[in-house]
């Protein structure tokens, strides 16, 4: 199998990986770097479970070739908490609000919401709903998730 050596920044650390040409960024993170937070749901860009931040912006990592991440900055849900393990306000509020049931969508929701709060610290409810429109949740009905993001924004 043809591979290509790539260097990129993942959650603040410079990482090197031998990326097979056809590996997705998602599989590179999960299978090669052991970062299993991002999940594969639909595999076609509809569900958002694989969302990670690429240069600070949410993308579906199942649709990004690993080799295309060379030289770029990737952040995953594993990078949201502080180094000592203290959760971010957003993560804490998600737990408190019950925005998590099965948890499969949660890593994607968290990075999408974190990107929203980074660019728009005090979003409206409509802005929150729009920011997570590409993240499907089949458990919660979204109410608790939206409430959690809004509550986290109050702490900013």
């Amino acid at each position, binding site marked *: 199998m*043809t591979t*290509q050596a790539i260097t990129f920044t993942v959650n603040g650390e410079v990482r090197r990986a031998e990326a*097979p*040409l*056809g*590996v*997705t960024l998602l*599989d590179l993170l999960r299978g090669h770097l052991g970062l299993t937070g991002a999940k594969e749901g639909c*595999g*076609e*860009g*509809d569900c*958002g479970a694989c*969302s990670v931040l*690429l240069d600070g*912006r*949410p*993308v*579906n990592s*199942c*649709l*990004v*070739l690993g*080799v*295309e991440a060379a030289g770029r900055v990737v952040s995953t849900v594993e990078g949201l908490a502080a180094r000592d393990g203290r959760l971010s306000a957003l993560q804490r509020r998600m737990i408190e609000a019950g925005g998590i049931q099965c948890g499969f969508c949660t890593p994607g929701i968290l990075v*999408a919401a974190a*990107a929203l709060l980074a660019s728009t610290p005090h979003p409206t409810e409509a802005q929150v709903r*729009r*920011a997570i*429109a*590409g*993240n499907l949740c089949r458990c919660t009905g979204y109410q608790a998730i939206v409430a959690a993001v809004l509550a986290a924004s109050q702490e900013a």
Partner: protein
Amino acid sequence: MIPVRHYVRPASLEAAARALREAGGRARVLAGGTDLIVLMRAGRASPGCLVSLSGIPGLDRIERGEEGGLVLGTRVTWSAILEAAPAPVGFPAPAFAMLAEAAAEVGAVQTRNAGTLGGNLCHAAPSAEAAPPLLALDAAVEAVGPDGRRRIPLGAFLLGPNRTALAPDEVLAAIHVPPPPPGLAGTYLKGALRGAMEIAQVSVAAAVALAPDGRVAAARVALGAVAPAPFRVAAAETALEGRHPDAAAVAAAAAHAAGAARPITDIRASAEYRRHLVEVLTRRALERAVERARGGAR
């Protein structure tokens, strides 16, 4: 694992074109990947070689073009369009609004961050969000091949579902938008079942410029998702030009648009519903465009 046999990341458009030529028509250009990677994962595309544009500098530029027009690099993302709005590099906001409103309708933020204008046009879906506003703005695309560059009017570029006028060894380099007629104001409306994550049942870009006496000096109407390729409706435009944009004139233009549509029935809508929607959305879009051209709030 996606079946990628060869992957090249050239440093210039000319090198990309050479790589395409060497692959003898079996290569595909990779930009944001939001269409191509989906097709490859589903086994609906299996190019022998991927030619990535990610190593070519400057393809994400939004620059002032000749005489106040606009140049959009092929890798400009939907998010970049939204962030450049309302008036990128001095391009008139009421005209740019069509493209910005279309950008806001694309997928979700994940798609808008990765997906590019060039990729959207080259994928050439009948519902391509970029097409109606850029047609209404009289845009042309710049193609780079191994033997040089050429410009293709967008209307001649979009040939049908997944078909464009690009040769197998040409790369779409940029989109050129000429300066719009003075005062041109437009809007983009999309018919869809949900407020996000939707492919258009019908899309309409409409714009007008008004003369000092209130008559229509220029009209633009472009439709998406109701024919093999998005297109301008000349009959709707001539029905408005030189007239006062009153209810009757707008209704006549909308009727021309519905008459020009050749919709199909599919999972998203029936042909009959689409034709009805063309008339309704064209009327609403023109009403809003007229309001904006008069300096109204919306």
